[in-house]
């Protein structure tokens, strides 16, 4: 994205920040939900797009962030809580990153899923046996508008980071890794470090989203915080939107979030069937996103 494009997008975000002055009810709630997934899916694609590693660990980092707030939210000042959430997310992602370097393809996918479940089980066990209470009440004094603004700020920061990354050597390295990892190693790229660095960056944002969202629900338990459907929703949104460009995931987030909303609202009793059919239609009729784009590019190329 060029500087001008970034400036326009950031200005757009700033304009959207005015929403809470117009409506603090349903539209704000919908905007929060979209903003949440916009950050998560963009952060997801920032790592998974160039490296083509499909991660299902989103829920793990989201949950870590949310739990940090549940534990520390009433003890420490808010910025410190966010900082701690980010740091924990970073440390965990570095550990996971270096542990999973040898995994590829579907092995990485299922590993990340297992990781999220393992963390959830360990947190559960810890709560049951050490703190001896399950489920935490998050009574942090924060308004919905503040949650929304924080999410917008996160999204802006993420876009700025993405723009910088695209021009940086690290971003280029990841692009090369995505094209051909063997070549990447043989042009002197430390592929392991590059991938882990990006994984950590992306994970920090996920943890921060979890932290920001936690006060919205009053109550948190591991099943809510580490809900695997977060991972799947983010994955699907990003894949549908396309992971090849910074704003690609947004193309999946906005329509899907609205679609889910419209379908639940209009057809509460047939939501599942309809959402499934729409999904299949999209996959077949509009092969957009990463797969379609790639397919068209490749088909145009000589064999």
């Amino acid at each position, binding site marked *: 994205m060029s500087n001008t494009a970034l400036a326009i997008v950031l200005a757009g975000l700033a304009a959207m920040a005015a929403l809470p002055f117009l409506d603090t009810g349903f539209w704000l709630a919908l905007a929060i939900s979209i903003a949440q997934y916009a950050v998560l899916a963009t952060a997801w694609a920032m790592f998974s797009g160039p490296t083509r590693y499909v991660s299902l660990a989103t829920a793990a980092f989201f949950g870590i962030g949310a739990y940090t707030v549940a534990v520390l939210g009433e003890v420490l000042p808010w910025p410190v809580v966010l900082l701690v959430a980010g740091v924990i997310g970073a440390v965990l992602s570095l550990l996971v990153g270096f542990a999973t370097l040898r995994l590829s393809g579907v092995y990485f996918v299922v590993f990340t899923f297992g990781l999220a479940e393992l963390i959830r089980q360990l947190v559960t066990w810890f709560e049951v046996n050490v703190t001896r209470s399950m489920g935490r009440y998050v009574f942090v004094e924060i308004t919905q508008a503040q949650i929304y603004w924080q999410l917008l700020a996160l999204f802006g920061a993420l876009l700025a980071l993405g723009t910088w990354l695209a021009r940086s*050597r690290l971003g*280029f*390295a990841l*692009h*090369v890794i*995505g*094209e*051909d990892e*063997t*070549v*990447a*190693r*043989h*042009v*002197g*790229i*430390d*592929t392991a470090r590059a991938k882990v660095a990006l994984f950590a960056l992306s994970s920090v944002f996920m943890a921060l989203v979890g932290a920001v969202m936690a006060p919205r629900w009053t109550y948190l338990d591991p099943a809510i915080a580490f809900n695997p459907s977060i991972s799947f929703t983010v994955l699907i949104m990003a894949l549908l939107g396309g992971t090849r460009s910074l704003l690609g995931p947004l193309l999946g987030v906005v329509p899907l979030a609205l679609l889910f909303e419209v379908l639940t609202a209009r057809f509460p009793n047939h939501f599942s069937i309809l959402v499934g059919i729409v999904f299949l239609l999209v996959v077949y009729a509009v092969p957009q996103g990463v797969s379609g784009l790639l397919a068209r*590019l*490749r088909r*145009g*190329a*000589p064999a």
Partner: protein
Amino acid sequence: MSAALQSQTAPLLRVEGLRRAFGGLVAVDGLSFTVHPGEIVGLLGPNGSGKTTALNLISGALAPDAGRVVLDGRDVTGLPAHRLTRLGIARTFQLVRVLPGLSLNENVVAGLAFGREPAWGAEARSRAATLLTRVGLGGRDNQPASILTYGDQKRLELARALALSPRLLLLDEWLAGLNLTELRGGIDLIASLRDEGCTVLMVEHVMDAIRALANRCVVMNAGQHIAEGPPAEVLADHAVIQAYLGDDDA
């Protein structure tokens, strides 16, 4: 010339007792040889004799089970590929590997950005343009690599390897599959590299190219070193002929 070089300088690359097995198959078995600065050494042998594995061991794509790789007096055995690349070993691949989603210029910048003498930004782009001209792809900087012909992909791969300012260039059948015109151009290109003092270790089946370019040849069979010497002598060697005759593809 080769004898003179050998006696006067320390070897740039020394390989000692290199061994690598895949399951029960020993692909490289106790391989030893040296390459001196400024030399072009041909690594020959019938298909499946372990040449590519040897290159993979030297370039860090694989780690050896035993033996040593010494680069300019430093033991670099088992270092990962990116470290070896930064120490000055560059390579091309048997099955040509360009980065199809990037432009020609970006393909070469990939070689410049992380190598021994890294360059980035405008400087990298202009150096990449120069290298593209050098391999005969001048002026096509912004074309996507995916549309290149096979021969041009080989050129691009070489430009990327040269971008790393290599002290030792490993060419894995770089001339294979080129048509006659391309082949002649390719041989000239490598010759010009030699004239600039670049050291090359090349796996090659095109014997005309070996005769024209190599100072010295190392011949492998079934993973083992079976002969070594100037191309003319080696290609007349009884053991070498036997090894090749035993193989239909020779």
